């Protein structure tokens, strides 16, 4: 068998952006190769708490979230043939102090302004939605159309469907750079030789910056470690997505029964950053203290593991989704800053349109361009 090295599109990165866009492009009849350095979904795609959330998003990316929630998530399990465990039972963001309430009110005002159904509710109303919460909670913001899904199943579900549609995935191959041929991005150089595509999609999380640099493109994206703790399976308690104004933790109870709760230590921007998803000794205790403030009833629930993942944190906490004008043939999608999972099914629609028609028409992503970063005046 001759090894496949050319395709209409070479996608760099086998995360959820790469898998879902491969799926959409294959559906449009394109021949696609996805290159992955480690394993499918190894980065942020399988390392997030599964939020499918519109509330508290920047209006510049809110359209992606609203489109995904309205049009894709509700039927995604059927579409992929894999149960992605999507539950649309609302997102509640809790407050304990007056300061918290101000933060929540601020988010709520911003979201309502762009047409999202979010409102402030009292502590008692919050406890009516979820009776397991502490009596100390004085207020909350409530977005009934938010939800959560299983990021592992979703990523691997997109991967499986893409495979079914004829996409070739090659893992264990590290991309060294992109090479231009006659002015266009065509060759992906790897430690396993060259791969050639009519177009190249770069969606490799925080590695994207290094790879984009090889064709002279840079973006203010840094990686930042965040962690999640997972508990033993508990009887079903609630389906809502949780967040707190103070940012101590976020997460949900999974279909399996375990609680998947993420957070950080406050030191994450400056903790020593090894290259291998190392957890920090302070973070899980920190998340646990957060949980105890809001859900003291979870005191005796056992944590069975913790893990770390990297945000590809962009300077304005928004993703870069664009065709690179200076490098024709190169499209990028990275810098999702820790909230890419929920919008990924919509991002892949935008990307497939960008790559086939030159413009994302279904969803407005005009404010997520790669050339939006300016110095101070």
């Amino acid at each position, binding site marked *: 068998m001759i090894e496949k090295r050319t395709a209409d599109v070479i996608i760099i990165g086998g995360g959820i952006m790469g898998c879902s866009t491969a799926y959409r492009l294959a559906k449009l009849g394109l021949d696609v190769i996805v290159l992955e350095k480690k394993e*499918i979904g190894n980065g942020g795609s399988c390392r997030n708490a599964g939020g499918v959330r519109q509330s508290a998003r920047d209006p510049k990316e809110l359209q992606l979230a609203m489109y995904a929630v309205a049009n894709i998530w509700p039927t995604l399990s059927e579409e992929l043939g894999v149960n992605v465990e999507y539950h649309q039972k609302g997102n509640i963001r809790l407050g304990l102090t007056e300061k918290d309430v101000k933060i929540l009110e601020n988010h709520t005002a911003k979201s309502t302004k762009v047409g999202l159904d979010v409102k402030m509710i009292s502590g008692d109303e919050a406890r009516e939605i979820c009776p397991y919460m502490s009596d100390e909670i004085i207020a909350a913001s409530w977005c009934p159309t938010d939800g959560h899904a299983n990021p592992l199943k979703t990523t691997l579900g997109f991967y499986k469907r893409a495979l079914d549609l004829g996409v070739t995935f090659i893992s264990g191959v590290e991309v060294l750079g992109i090479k231009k041929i006659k002015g266009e991005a065509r060759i992906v150089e790897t430690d396993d030789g060259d791969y050639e595509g009519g177009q190249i999609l770069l969606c490799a999380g925080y590695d994207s910056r290094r790879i984009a640099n090889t064709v002279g493109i840079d973006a203010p994206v840094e990686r930042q470690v965040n962690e999640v703790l997972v508990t*033993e399976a508990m009887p079903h308690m609630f389906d809502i997505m949780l967040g707190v104004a103070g940012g101590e933790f976020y997460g949900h109870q999974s279909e399996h029964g375990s609680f998947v709760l993420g957070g950080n230590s406050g030191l994450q921007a400056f903790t020593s950053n090894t290259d291998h998803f190392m957890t920090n000794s*302070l973070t899980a205790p920190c998340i646990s*203290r957060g949980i105890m403030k809001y859900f003291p009833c*979870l005191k005796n629930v*056992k*944590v*069975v593991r*913790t893990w770390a993942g990297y945000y590809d944190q962009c300077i304005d906490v928004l993703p870069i989704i664009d065709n690179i004008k200076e490098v024709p043939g190169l499209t990028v999608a990275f810098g999702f800053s820790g909230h890419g999972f929920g919008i990924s099914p919509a991002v892949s629609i935008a990307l497939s349109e960008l790559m086939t028609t030159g413009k994302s028409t279904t969803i407005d992503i005009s404010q997520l361009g790669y050339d939006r970063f300016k110095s101070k005046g």
Partner: protein
Amino acid sequence: MAKIIRTAHTEPFVEKPDDDMIICRCEEITKGEIRRAVYDGMSTMNEVKRYLRSGMGLCQGQTCQRLVQNIIAAEMKMKPTEVGMIQGRSPVRPVEIGIFSNNKTDVKEE
């Protein structure tokens, strides 16, 4: 990880008589589910774990890891040494959230 080229199977999935045997006891994952996951494209310990939850239970795969490695290797026609292993994660023994939260090391004074 070694290079793995993944494409869809052209031949249908074939069931085996012992497919209903439980392999991961913590999460009650059967041999058939693992074989099916490999057929669906999951090619490493981690991918099967993420797809099925095998090895995600209380024992962190201490009991089933070798068994799952062998099944994946057999299905992939690879050696068990080539399909990867489960990452050991803290806490290596389950610990209550309440006890975790009792950690007072380096907590900022409010």
